[in-house]
Every structure is written in C-alpha cells, then in structure tokens.
C-alpha cells in the first residue's frame, strides 16, 4: 500500500506502564486514532488532530499528545505547512480544507490597543456597588424622537419605534447551522441565549423543531442555499438575517457533503436525505444592491415589518462602501465578519488569504456611516476572532453595537480549536452528526458552562466600564477617545481613528 508522505502533525503517546487497558481512549476518539491489539492500545498517529478528548477522558493520565518533533528541515521561507500542503495536494489533487478561523500569524490589532482608565479627576465606578448597564438594542433607530403633550400635560411618545432586538448584554451567538454543528450544540446555544437574554442565530440550515420553543432568542438566517426557508421559518425568531458572506470564506459558497445529511438534517433543511447541501457562492437572486433591497423588503413583507432584517457580510477591502449600500438598501443590522472568523469547513487557501481584520473593518464602517449621517439607520455587529471581553470592549469602542461569539461559545462545549470540524468527526460532539458523538454533548450540562462564560465576560466588561468611569455601554460604543494604540503606524492609527499611547 502507498504510504503517505504527509508528515503527521502530532505524536500521540501512551505510557504503557500507566495504562490500565480500559479502552476509553478508543471509544472517545472520533478520528479512530486508537485500536485494540488484543493486549494493548495501538496508535495511528497520522490520524491524530490533537482535539484532546482522549487526554481528558483517560483515567490514568497515560496519554500525551505532542507536536510531532519530526519536522522538515528548518527554513524561514518554506514553513512546515507549506511543504506539508504540497505533499497533501500531490497525493490527492484536492483543495485542503480546514475548520475554525485562520491560524496564520497576521498581526492581531486588538493586541495593540489599550483601554483608558480614570484617575483622580474623574472617579472610577465600582460595578459591585453601582448599577452598570450593558443592555443593547439592535435595529434601525430614527434620527430623532417626537413627543406630543397628552391630556394630563405629560409628554407622550409620538414616534413609532421600528422593531428592535433587545439584548441584556452586547453579545450574540454567531450563526452556526444545524448540519455544520450538531442539534445538541444548537440546543446548548438556545438554552444559554434564553437564560442570558440574548440571541442565537440558526445559521443557514433551517430551524429544527426542537429549537422552535426558543423563538424569543433566535435570529433565523436566509443564505444562498435557502435551506428550510418558508414563511413559518421567517417568523420563527425575533429577526431575520440574510447571509451574503462569511469572514472565513468570503466570496465562496458552502458544501455540506451528503454523508452529513441524515434524516433529521434533511428534514430541517428541506432536502432529500444523503444529497449534498450546496450553498452557491452568490445568492442567485442577488447580483446587485437593488436585488438585495428587494430581498430585504420581501422578507419584511413576509414578516409584517415586525422584525429587524440583518445582512451579514465578510469584511473585505471595500467593506465601508458595501456596508453603506446595505444600510441604504434597508437593512436594520449589518453583521460584519472579519477574516479571522470561524467556519465549519473552508478551503485553507481562502480562509488564510482573503478578507481584512474585523478591527479595521468596524472602524471603517462606523466612520463611513457617520460621514454619511446614517449611523443610526442600522446597528453594527462585529464578529470574527473575538477572544475575550477585552476584544469585545475594544471593538465596541471602535464602533460596534454588539459582538458575535462563535468559537468562544464552542470552546465552552469542549472544543479545543483543533480546526478539524470539516471532517465531521468532532470528538466533542459539536461539529458532527454521528449520534455516538453528538450524544456526548448534553445541552443542559454544557449550556451551564456557556452561561458561566458569558456571565464572566459581562462582569469583566462592567469592570472595564467602571474603570472608564462610565455606567452604560452606550457611553463606550464608538468612544474611540478611550482607546490608544501601541506600536501602530500613523496610517493604522488614522484608520482606527485613535491616538497613540502617550497622546
């Protein structure tokens, strides 16, 4: 048999002295790394993706997953993955796929931004003693309000408010479809969203009937595949999102292979069992901004103008002008996904080389909408590589209304960002449809963890606001005066609209 010349990335090792032959590693590994020889566990290290499921479930701490110490000869130009990918392509002729956001060492601008704090002249506020408000509303905001005098002489609101999505904190869960993630993973998100007073997003895979009860905490998505879209679906949540693009794979479509379309997924997506679910690169009825406008208003008609319509795009070079067009086309929310945003499956060449970072994109979009005097017309959601509450605070200060969390939410479910979601073997039961794997993810148990993490981030955000001497998140939103750049060049500072530290 031809033996692959693609070097394994990892070296799985078992300490045979410690091992008690319980075979749990064999059961737990979604990638079949381990097998039973009759008297001990055998290892096929070529299959190991370092998801660390086995490590956590080995009762004897007998397992070690090391980075393969065998590397190609060091070369500053020809890195390990450059050589490895070519070897892989030589063997398969295919496009290497990957999952999660780009792991390439592009500079992360968040790590060059620092937040202000109060000293003496303006007191900081203790969030444990004083109210600290994170509530956020997504949707179109009229430029001004009109009141009229009521019979009792009091002011009565005359303006009719457009529909808003109320969030108790400026976080939402990023769209992840049933199909790309398991139903249990979606349920985990739905339970947590409800408990937290925020929203999850169905992604493009339709809405499974088990998720319908969470309708007050759901945004339903309409993407190019139009999976599961019907009038009930459009009205099943608090908002509708049109997906134009995704940060990890701007400009390309999606492909969920037939093996991942069992009965339940097929039903939810409204397609035959076992057929490939293809999301075309463009939406076939949107070839220009006027077409987008028609779809936005078609959806508004179908939902009786009672739900905000969001448009999700990938952050690309011209994102400011595109976002402005989207707002003028009637969108109530613009969701911008930076190039580091996650994915269930994308060609690595696309994921790692197309798009722009979310930091630049949000700054440019917020600036443009303000210059055009239409910033109030739509809320902005920032997504794509938000790793902590500090990243969230920074991107809100740059101009985002709320932040979408995908990868961080999955990490609470066990994900270790191994990046092999596209295989459908996720040992944590997240990005797989195999019943023996998905059963591991108990929504009741894991939603607790997700809620904990969002609570922790909210507390941290409140601490940041308190240190800034403000007690409402709207006073941070777009307040770039409270950010400083460290080690950034003049042009980057200019794009971000911030001063360098020391000024």
């Amino acid at each position, binding site marked *: 048999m031809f033996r692959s010349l693609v070097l394994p990335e990892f070296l799985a090792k078992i300490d045979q002295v410690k091992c008690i032959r319980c075979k749990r590693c064999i059961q737990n590994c979604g990638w079949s790394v381990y097998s039973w020889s009759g008297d001990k566990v055998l290892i096929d290290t070529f299959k190991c993706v370092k998801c660390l499921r086995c490590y956590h479930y080995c009762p004897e701490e007998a397992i070690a997953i090391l980075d393969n110490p065998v590397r190609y000869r060091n070369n500053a130009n020809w890195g390990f993955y450059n050589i490895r990918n070519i070897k892989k392509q030589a063997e398969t002729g295919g496009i290497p796929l990957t999952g999660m956001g780009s792991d390439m060492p592009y500079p992360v601008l968040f790590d060059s931004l620092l937040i202000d704090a109060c000293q003496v002249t303006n007191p900081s506020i203790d969030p444990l003693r004083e109210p600290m*408000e994170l509530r956020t509303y997504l949707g179109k905001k009229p430029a*001004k*309000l009109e*009141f009229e005098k009521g019979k009792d002489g009091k002011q009565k609101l005359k303006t009719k408010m457009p529909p808003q999505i109320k969030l108790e904190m400026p976080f939402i869960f990023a769209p992840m479809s049933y199909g790309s993630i398991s139903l249990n993973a979606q349920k985990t998100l739905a339970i947590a969203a409800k408990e937290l007073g925020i929203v999850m997003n169905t992604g493009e895979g339709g809405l499974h009937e088990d998720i319908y009860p969470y309708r007050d905490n759901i945004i339903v998505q309409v993407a190019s595949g139009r999976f599961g879209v019907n009038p009930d679906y459009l009205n099943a949540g608090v908002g509708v999102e049109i997906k134009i693009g995704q940060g990890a794979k701007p400009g390309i479509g999606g492909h969920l292979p037939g093996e991942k379309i069992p009965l339940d997924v097929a039903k939810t997506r409204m397609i035959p069992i076992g057929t490939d679910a293809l999301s075309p690169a463009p939406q076939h009825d949107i070839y220009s901004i006027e077409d987008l406008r028609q779809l936005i208003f078609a959806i508004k008609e179908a939902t009786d103008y009672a739900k905000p319509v969001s448009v999700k795009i990938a952050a690309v070079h011209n994102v400011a002008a595109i976002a402005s067009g989207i707002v003028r086309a009637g969108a109530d929310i613009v969701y911008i996904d930076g190039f580091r945003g996650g994915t269930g499956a994308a060609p690595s060449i696309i994921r790692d080389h197309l798009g722009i970072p979310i930091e630049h994109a949000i700054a440019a979009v917020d600036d443009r909408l303000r210059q055009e005097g239409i910033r109030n017309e739509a809320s902005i959601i920032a997504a794509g590589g938000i790793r902590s509450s500090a990243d969230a605070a920074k991107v809100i200060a740059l101009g985002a209304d709320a932040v979408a969390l995908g990868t961080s939410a999955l990490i609470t479910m066990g994900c270790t960002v191994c990046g092999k979601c596209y295989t459908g073997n996720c040992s944590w039961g997240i990005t797989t449809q195999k019943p023996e794997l998905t059963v591991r993810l108990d929504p009741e148990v894991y939603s607790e963890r997700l809620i904990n993490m969002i609570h922790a981030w909210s507390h941290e955000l409140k601490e940041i606001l308190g240190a800034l*001497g403000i007690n409402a998140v*709207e006073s941070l*939103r777009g307040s*770039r005066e409270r950010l400083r750049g460290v080690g950034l060049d003049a042009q980057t500072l200019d794009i971000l609209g911030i001063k360098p530290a020391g000024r």
Partner: protein
Amino acid sequence: MSHNFQKDISGCGLIGIINKDRTRISGSFVTKSLCLMRDRGNGLGAGYAAYGVYPKYKDLYAFHIMYDEPSAQRDTEEYLKKNYYIEKKEPMPTAPVEGIKIHPILYRYFVKPLSEKAERESAELEDDDFVVKTVMKINSEIDGAYVFSSGKDMAVFKGVGMPGEIARFFRIDEYEGYIWTGHTRFPTNTPGWWGGAHPFTLLDWSIVHNGEISSYGINKRYLEMYGYKLTLLTDTEVVAYLFDLLVRRHGLDVLTACTALAAPFWKNVDTMHDEEKEAMTALRVIYGSALLNGPFSILFGHKNGLVGFNDRIKLRPLVAATKGKTVYMASEESAIREICPSPEKIWSPRAGEPVIVELES
C-alpha cells in the same frame, strides 16, 4: 494660537440665579457668591453668562468675539460684513485689572443675518441655523478667532483669571440680567486660553459645568454626524451642542432633553407603566450616544429659564434653594447663603433629577 490643546480636565465651582419674574439684578451678586468658593478655582479660568442684559438690542444676535491677532479680526469681520447686517460694533468695555496682564482683542457686534437671503451664503438656512454655521466656521476655520457668545439679549464674559478679576475686567457689575450663571475653574492642566473658560455657549444656550464627561468621545462623534464642529477638545462644549441639537433642532422639551442626557437606569425604566416605559426605552435607545456619562453637575441657561442637573449617580455636588421668585443653584450651600442668607427652601437635587426653572411669561 492652536485651539487644539489637551482635553480640559478640571474641578470647578458653579453658581446660578434666576428671577422668575424677570427682575434684573446686577452681576455683582454672582461674583460675590463665586468668590467664596475659593478652593474650587485656581485663577485659570472664570466666567459669567447673563440673560436680559441687552434689552436695547434684544432682536439682534450679540456676538462676543476674541481674537489673538488683528489679522483674525480682519478675516472675521470681512465674513460678517458679507453675511450680516451689523447694527453696532464696539470693543468690549473693560477695565484695567492688576491680575490680568494680557488678554486677547475683545469685540462685540450686534448683528442679524442679511434678510435678503440670496445675498448670504447658505441661503436656505433659517437665521438660527445660519448663526450656528457662522460660529462653527469662525471657530474652526479662522485661526485665532473665537466666538464666545452668540445669543440674543444675553451675554457671556469669560477669561483667564480669578472670578473677581474677570468680573472687574468685564465690568459685570454694570450689567443687569434676570438669569445669571457663573463659573470658577480648577484645571489640572494649564491651557491658559481665554476661550477655554466657561460658560460655553451657542445661540442662547449657555453651559457651566463642573466635572468631566467620560463619554466625551462618543458624544463628540454623535454631534459631528449632525454637522457640529467640536474644535475645543473640552467636554463642556458637547453639552451646549447637545442641548442645541435635542431642544432646538429635534424639538424635545427641556425636561425630556435632560432625561435623555442623564437617563434613568434600566432597572427603574423596567418598573414604569407601559406608556412611560415605552417612551423612556425609546429615549435611551435613540439618544444613547447623547447620554452624558461621568461625574458632572451642570447649569444650563437659556432664554426661557435655567436648568441644573447632575450625572446619574451624582458624583459632583449641586445644591438648590428658593426665596420668593428667585431660585439659586450652586456647587455649595455656602455659596448660596453668601448672597441669600435665609432661603425658604434649600435641598440637594437627586442624581439625574433636573431642577427646571422657567421664567414667568
């Protein structure tokens, strides 16, 4: 001089007096009260606003302008001549004061936009909007010129010095008005620029302010979306412009505007009855970027009255008192008692709750 100095950070003392029946009083009262709050100022800025001081010219805009250079005056006047009917132009009346060695060139003009609108720039604008545009233009485009008062029948006097010195310099005891506000400053940096003193004004809005607006960054960007040019990098400027936007341009009443700027907490909104809750929610949702956050007490004067208000958790002091038809507001009770020893009522307004006093019509 560049007006682009560092953000204004200061502690301050405030005083405001309003006679609801429009009885005019001399500026010397305000000075007396302000001079008492010695710890609250360090001589780096003081100022006064007075309403009802120019009855003879009450239909004209009174522009008070300071110039660093004669060339700035020339450029400004050239622009004014092209666009305004100028009834009167004169140097600000001043008196020599020992503590004030240098001061900018100070002029006042009683003007109105040319009525033949075609003759002036931006003919489509109403008079008030045109005056706002003029103020923004002079302050941001003519280097060394700064309009520090632009309302009708009202005046601002301000500069670098102790409150007593500034009062004597501008001879404010010779003016009589029915609303007065005063301000003494304790800046922690020393810009030493006359325009940086309070009050800040636009049209007949005047603001004196103690504290720091920690939400300055977003308030500024919000105002810029509506064409305001924030040239001074001081946070007080945003308050004046926010009132102009919310009250004059958006048509909110003063109480609603104050409620937008120092909004009630969500936990209070949530317990309101339906209609009020809906209105309050809308107010916060729409005017979130106008929310003033950070420690402040503010006195806001306008042609129909005087408003005092605090930040949402009252991080800076404000005391109010009444006697007959007069209402006093100040940073300290002592400053009120200095000029009104036995008020009928004296109280500390609660956080975020404005004290709104209107003139009798």
